[in-house]
């Protein structure tokens, strides 16, 4: 993978965060350096892509995406400036890979003859193998499907800590733009000492950032009822701390396991999978 020098990376930060008016020259130059070759190759190798656009088109779309998202989704996703140069390169590759994927899907959706299975997810990334760079909630998922997935999860009979885990992760990914892998760490950091009661309150509050997602009143009541259920004598589920539910294999493995189980429920409902 081509990388950026420290100078190139620092210039992007200076231009974006410290220069008024904001400049995008270094950002676009970095994208050009990182992406020209892989996008050219991709266009040549994937007919579903090469037939609908040129690598220059893809590069321009990537510039625009980077200009809109570099500050809120990468450099200042948290309150401190993200100076992870390698992470930035991975992020740029991911942005471009997602644009390619959307193009391929669009071309597949509009093709008269069905395309070969070339538009399979696995074949799209620009040779990046970093799972943390994956965008777990593809922008292409339509809102109704997302709402449906939330309804299925909130209405499921799975244990409350699993339900809460899935919802917390989904809200985090959708509202804060973190990757699925990053969200595992964040979930632990943010919630492990909280009681489930408090955690649910926090999730409800965070979900307000997603205007299209309404946790219905009946779902909220249902969750609260599950929180009220006794975990053991004189102790409700809601009084237990999140970390009390971790299995022996550890926090991360527990969370992945719970999310996978919930996803299986969603898949069984034939709606959506994460």
């Amino acid at each position, binding site marked *: 993978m081509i990388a950026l020098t420290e100078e190139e990376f620092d210039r992007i930060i200076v231009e974006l965060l410290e220069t008024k008016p904001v400049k995008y020259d270094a950002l676009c130059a970095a994208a050009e350096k990182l992406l020209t070759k892989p996008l050219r190759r991709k266009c040549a190798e994937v007919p579903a892509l090469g037939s609908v656009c040129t690598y220059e088109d893809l590069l321009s779309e990537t510039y625009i995406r980077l200009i809109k998202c570099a500050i809120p989704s990468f450099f200042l996703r948290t309150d401190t400036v993200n100076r992870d140069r390698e992470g930035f390169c991975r992020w740029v590759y991911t942005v471009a890979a997602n644009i390619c994927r959307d193009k391929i899907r669009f071309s597949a959706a509009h093709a008269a003859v069905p395309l070969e299975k070339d538009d399979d997810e696995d074949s799209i990334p620009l040779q990046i193998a970093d799972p943390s760079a994956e965008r777990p909630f593809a922008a292409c998922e339509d*809102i109704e499907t997302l709402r449906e997935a939330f309804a299925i999860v909130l209405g499921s009979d799975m244990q409350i800590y699993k339900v809460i885990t899935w919802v917390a992760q989904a809200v985090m990914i959708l509202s804060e*733009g973190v990757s699925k892998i990053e969200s595992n760490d964040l979930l632990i950091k943010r919630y492990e000492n909280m009681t489930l009661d408090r955690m649910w309150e926090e999730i409800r509050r965070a979900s307000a950032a997603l205007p299209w997602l309404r946790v219905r009143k009946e779902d909220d009541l249902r969750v609260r009822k599950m929180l009220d259920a006794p975990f053991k004598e004189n102790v409700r589920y809601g009084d237990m701390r999140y970390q009390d539910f971790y299995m022996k294999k550890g926090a991360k493995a527990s969370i992945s396991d719970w999310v996978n189980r919930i996803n299986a429920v969603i898949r069984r409902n034939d709606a959506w999978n994460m």
Partner: protein
Amino acid sequence: MEHVSVEKIIEFVSVDRLSESDLALTREVNAHLCDCADCRRRVRAAQTVYDALLAECKTREAAKKRLSRELDETLERKI
């Protein structure tokens, strides 16, 4: 500090080319985002919704209209 208006957020997340006026808008919004975590969160959320809407709607204009409606129904406009 005056936050970015909902209208500007909608324009910002739906920029799909870089005309002079689009560039000016992105510069203005980005300058504010450097100092405002609230607006960064609002922009991220609006971008997620807009992208999903764009996949559903036929045109950018339709997606923008629906985004405006989605945001309208929340407390967004009171910020």
